[in-house]
């Protein structure tokens, strides 16, 4: 049924429909609405789940690690500083191969204290072994959250569903909230491949010396390698039931494009409009939306950008001392090709600053009119400021 709900509640509804059994979370803006709604569902019996209140995000993840080891479906949500506090246990969740699902609302890191959107928080967790999926709109948030459980339980790896603060988390949009039966058909009860068992006592995750540790790490990568293939199969199933799919990547008018703009999250929606306008003016421009960041779909990106002369990557994030993080990843994916497009890195919209259609159009013209990138990233829309204290 189509309902007008905010992005946060698109997550909550998906978690309810996924019949999650244990939820543990610590509130942080802009994530709080997600677990607020879920705590109400737990309290009023809408969900048959335990909501564990904890004193920190670190404990929230620790609690879920315990619960997931017991073989139940688990969920948490966090953001920014909270996610950073979880860091140690993010590694643990993937190393222990636990299919925990987390909604992560992109928020800039402090200081300066900032609650608005930016991707540096989740991208800083790039190497923790979590699958990362960046969403564009409310419907995608709901669908991706439901899919995340399938994906996590298939891979025995944790999955992060990522949405922009406020632009997505607090924006009301019409979203089709499916009925329980359809979701049950798509997402059967979790069948754990291992769990704590009093009848067969054993220890999990104890010492792994050098002679086995490397194989265990390789095992995680082997699982990651299957993710993209499974994702496509799963989306097909999803489409058969719900009539829609979003793709690990989405290429819009890339076939004949000379300049391809690469975006993630809500900037994609704005870029779709700019693309339409530029195309009307006869510009040969394409748009590539990256949803799946880990595992990184390098092959697909290479194929989809093969014919373009230039790529403009819009990064709402930054790695200090280097460049925008998506731009780095894309350059790395292309570097061994004999002929490859020039990659222009743009940094925009940090700390929740608007990325308007004008900004995106400006990025397009700069890219088109340039003969070669000057440096690794260009900061777009910087204000004149005094650089003194």
């Amino acid at each position, binding site marked *: 049924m189509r309902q007008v709900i905010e992005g946060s509640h698109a997550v909550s509804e998906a978690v309810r429909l996924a019949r999650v059994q244990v939820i543990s979370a610590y509130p942080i803006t802009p994530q709080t609405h997600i677990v607020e709604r879920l705590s109400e569902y737990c309290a009023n019996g809408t969900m048959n789940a335990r909501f564990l209140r904890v004193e920190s995000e670190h404990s929230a993840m620790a609690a879920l690690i315990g619960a997931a080891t017991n073989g139940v479906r688990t969920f948490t949500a966090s953001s920014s500083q909270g996610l950073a506090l979880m860091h140690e246990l993010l590694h643990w969740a993937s190393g222990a191969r636990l299919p925990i699902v987390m909604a992560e609302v992109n928020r800039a890191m402090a200081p300066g204290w900032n609650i608005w959107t930016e991707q540096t928080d989740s991208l800083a967790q790039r190497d923790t072994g979590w699958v990362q999926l960046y969403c564009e709109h409310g419907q995608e948030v709901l669908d991706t959250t439901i899919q995340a459980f399938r994906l996590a339980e298939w891979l025995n790896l944790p999955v992060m569903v990522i949405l922009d603060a406020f632009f997505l988390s607090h924006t009301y949009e019409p979203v089709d909230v499916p009925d329980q039966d359809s979701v049950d058909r798509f997402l059967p009860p979790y069948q754990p491949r291992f769990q704590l068992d009093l009848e067969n006592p054993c*220890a999990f995750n104890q010492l792994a010396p050098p002679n086995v540790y490397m194989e265990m790490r390789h*095992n995680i990568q082997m699982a990651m390698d*299957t993710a993209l293939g499974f994702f496509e199969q799963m989306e097909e199933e999803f489409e058969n039931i719900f009539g829609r799919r979003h793709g*690990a990547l989405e290429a819009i008018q890339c076939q004949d494009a000379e300049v391809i703009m690469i975006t993630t999250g809500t900037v994609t929606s704005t870029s779709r409009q700019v693309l339409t306008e530029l195309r009307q003016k006869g510009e040969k421009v394409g748009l590539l939306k990256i949803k799946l960041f880990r595992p990184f779909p390098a*092959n697909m990106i290479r194929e989809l950008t093969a014919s373009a002369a230039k790529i403009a990557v819009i990064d709402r994030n930054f790695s200090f001392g280097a460049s925008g993080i998506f731009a780095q990843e894309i350059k790395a994916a292309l570097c061994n090709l004999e002929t490859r497009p020039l990659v222009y890195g743009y940094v925009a919209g940090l700390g929740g600053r608007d990325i308007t259609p004008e900004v995106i159009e400006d990025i397009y013209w700069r890219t088109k009119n340039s003969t070669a990138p000057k440096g690794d990233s260009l900061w777009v829309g910087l204000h004149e400021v005094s650089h003194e204290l």
Partner: protein
Amino acid sequence: MASQQPLTNPIPLLIPCSHLTTEGNKTGSWRFLRPHYEEKTSPCSVACPAGEDISRIEMLTAEGFFKEAWETILMENPFPGVGGRVCYHPCEQSCNRGEFDEPVAIHTLERFLADTAIRYDLKPALEKLPARNKRIAVVGSGPSGLAAAFFLARLGYEVDVFEAQSEPGGVLRWAIPLYRLPLSILNQEIAQIRELGVRIHCGKPIPQQFLREQQSDYDAIFLGCGHSRGIPLKIFGEDLGGTEDGLQFLQRIRRGEIFSLQGTAAIIGGGNTAIDTARSAARLGAKVILIYRRRRQDMPAFHDEIEMALEEGVEIWELQTPVKISSQNGDLIVTLQQMRVTSEDQQGRARIKPVPGKKKEILVQHLFTAIGASTEEQWYDPPKKGTDILRLSNCTLVYQSGRPVLVYGGDLVADTKSVVHAVASGKQAALALDTLFGEGLDAISSKLQTCLVGKGPSISMEIFLGGVRSQRKHRMVRYEDLNSDYFQFAPVISQPRLLREERIQSFAEINLKVGASLAIREAERCFNCGLCNQCDNCQLFCPEVAVIRDNNPRGRHINYDYCKGCGVCVVECPRNAMTLEEELLCGKS
């Protein structure tokens, strides 16, 4: 679109996982700190002169075990019904909960338990030791004498109590007004002492010669004669008539000799007898002025009693002292000297001096004195000097070869003259005598030392008898020793009382009963300092599952094969019933 990767199913899943139990890994070998269950002493029980096991009493009350809770009081004090009403409850001042929100209303709960026992006609299951074939005489049936008789009887002694008055109880019967202590309660608790085999002989005044009889029927005599003679004002006109000792007045009321009091009554004094006299006079219809030479905050009377006296219309004139009394047409004119505060002593009590030339007169119809009391006869007091005298904290033993041992107790030896101190005195006398007969005079001090509650001075009958409480550590639990994260703020029960208007019309008991649900709620406020109430936090938090539940009253033990000594159990114990100690390294490699 993208190249389809082959799906292997199941997905590679190599994780660290043992295929056997890890019980072989005895993590106890890592331990250098050792937690153990160790019950400790609550501050309230230390502050209680009778050494009542208050934290346990409240634990039992909270669980609805009212009879057991009542018996736990009776273990240390024969007067829960009396104490629950008239005790000044020093326990509450030391209650650790006072540092959290407000102290537990211990006295209200004590009274509730006693009332419940009466209501259901409960009979206490008190242990009585085999007969010792020794006889003890108790002179005076006030609280100290009755307490001595109570404890001696339980220890197996044959006890005769001699009372000069027509009925037993002493100060409890004759001096404490009915609105504070109804007779039925007193009678019930005295009957309980009789149930133990104690014989109480009323109308039997004892002559001095009794103490020195060579061929005595008794092996020991306890003297708890109390202070029943009011101290005179020693001012001009006191003997004109119309001036009465407050204690006498209270006694005459109890005898039913006075039904009303007209005009203005002045009461001289600031102690509890003065307040009792004032409030009684108000009930009989008089306008009452209480005259005290120091300030109101210096009055030795209990604060609550002063407050209620004021509510009941008693006027308090501070810094006034009578210097002369004269009579005029049957009325009395009292000349009052204005006093002033010169300084304060260490306790903050005012030092005073007369203000020259500042005098005034007051016309009254009645004048009552209540400035203190002393013994009726000089020989009631313990000898000032002599040999073979053992002065303990609450009683004095005089050993006389070939004659009965004398023990002086109650107000005769007490620094603080209160009912509960009298009980403490009777108990100490009983335990001292039992030690004397069993182990000799020299053993008394050291034996009583082992029975201290905390560091004392209260002593415990249960510890003396080697009960469960004797296993408890003497260390007193402080507020900082508790884990207050587990406690929630909760207001203290408010004592329901008669309305002021109802109060002053009769001698009906002012404090009303509280129901079981309120009592349980109040008892649940108790932190149960130092005691295990089986909350199971230790078991829930132990990361090694090394706390093992047992099928016995102690509840659980630690499996030291696996306890790593992390100390989480000790930290998470809300009530300091566990202790973490350094592991002794001997015997470990």
